[in-house]
């Protein structure tokens, strides 16, 4: 299980990169593996304000549809357009080219996210 130490995590299996206010968001290696082959993502809309833990994106795999929850409150400032034609990047490179969007947040909110150690415990490793 690939878990970079420089990221923050949520119990809903998203990761957050950066110290803010602009942070990058994706889903974890554990999440992509559990979902199976991803065939579609409904990306969030740039300019939208999202509330923490609100569903702001949908990922469809060959198995099922799954919500992606905002790990942090803020405004969506960029989305990974490449996923429109290559959603499988979430499977093959979840922390790199498979990033989902960027949000401008209040940096102090980042303290509420999980460290790599805490997320690993949550996964039972």
């Amino acid at each position, binding site marked *: 299980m690939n878990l970079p130490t420089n990221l923050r995590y949520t119990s809903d299996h998203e990761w957050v990169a950066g110290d803010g206010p602009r942070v990058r968001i994706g889903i974890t290696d554990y999440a992509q593996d559990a979902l199976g082959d991803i065939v*579609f993502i409904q990306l969030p809309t740039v300019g939208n304000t999202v509330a923490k833990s609100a569903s702001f994106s949908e990922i469809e795999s060959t*198995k099922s549809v799954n919500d992606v929850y905002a790990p942090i409150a803020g405004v969506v400032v960029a989305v990974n357009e490449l996923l429109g034609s290559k959603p*499988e990047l979430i499977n093959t490179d979840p922390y790199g080219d498979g990033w989902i969007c960027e949000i401008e947040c209040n940096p102090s909110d980042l303290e509420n996210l999980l460290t790599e150690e805490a997320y690993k415990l949550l996964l039972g490793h």
Partner: protein
Amino acid sequence: MSVKVSPLDVVHRELGAKMAAFGGWEMPITYPTGTLIEHAACRNSAAMFDVSHLGTVRVSGVNAFECLQSAFTNDLNKISVGRAQYTHLLDQFDASVLDDIIVWWVRDDVFDVMPNASNTARVQEAIGGVDTTDTRAIIAVQGPQARQVVAKASPQAATVGRFRVAEMEILGARCTIAGTGYTGEDGLEIAVPVARAAELWRALAAAGGVPAGLGARDTLRLEAGLPLHGHELGDGINPLEAGLEWAVSWDKETFRGRGALKATKETGLTKKLIGITIEGRRPARDGTSVLLNDEIIGCVSSGNFSPTLGYCIAMAFVSVDTPVGQDVLLDVRGTMLEGKVIKLPFVAKKK
């Protein structure tokens, strides 16, 4: 009900399969290769599936033929010993399809009736026989190179033709082989004694068979326009609505549900099964409403991304007057997707 495990369970765990409950069994949904690669292997070379969860009810004796003739819709007089036939068991009163079944006519007075996993008990209730499901595993080798793969284990087994059935030894184990499958590709299904199943699986894998899970089996059968009980067949759906009248032999004077089905045919159908191709990659899954001119005209029974076509496809029951070529909308949780009605299948077998 306790969850059953396949005789090949240990092999799946060695391979790192993701297991999930299916019809009362814990079966591999996908291997680490992933559904899309497993799907492509079946279309382009050869995939192998553990389908041990299918039921086997052995009906034998001098009354076996008549027993099946009076229970099922299709006519065994159309085939003969050493052949397989697709058939239905109908509800006596409303002609709903209680199960869709493949019958293997193994010997003169011996038939292996193969129901869907969760329907084995209701089929046995209708026809009697002996449930031999626990005595064997079934390995389905499917794809344009399926026969080359099987030939490496048994050249003789690889010659069993489409919808033919034969008993023979493979690697010293007494097997029943049928030229049947559920992927829209040529292939063979091999019933092998439980104690020899893992050995045969490994031999077929070593011969080039790509292990594939039930996830790929579902996307393959969907592309081939093949029905899945509980989706395209089941309570409230008769064979005519599902477009499977070819599996109903009206020439037979009696079979279970014949009167009810005849009455429905004379009254006229209210819905029919069609295919819908959908622009884009967002699946319209079962339960999705199909709309025309702001009115709901039907409902998706199965839908997913088609790995072969690169866009989404769905099977749906719609009002009978809906023509091929009709543009429709699909309501996926509030987002309207554009679709077009087509004649099934979506992907035809390469000749």
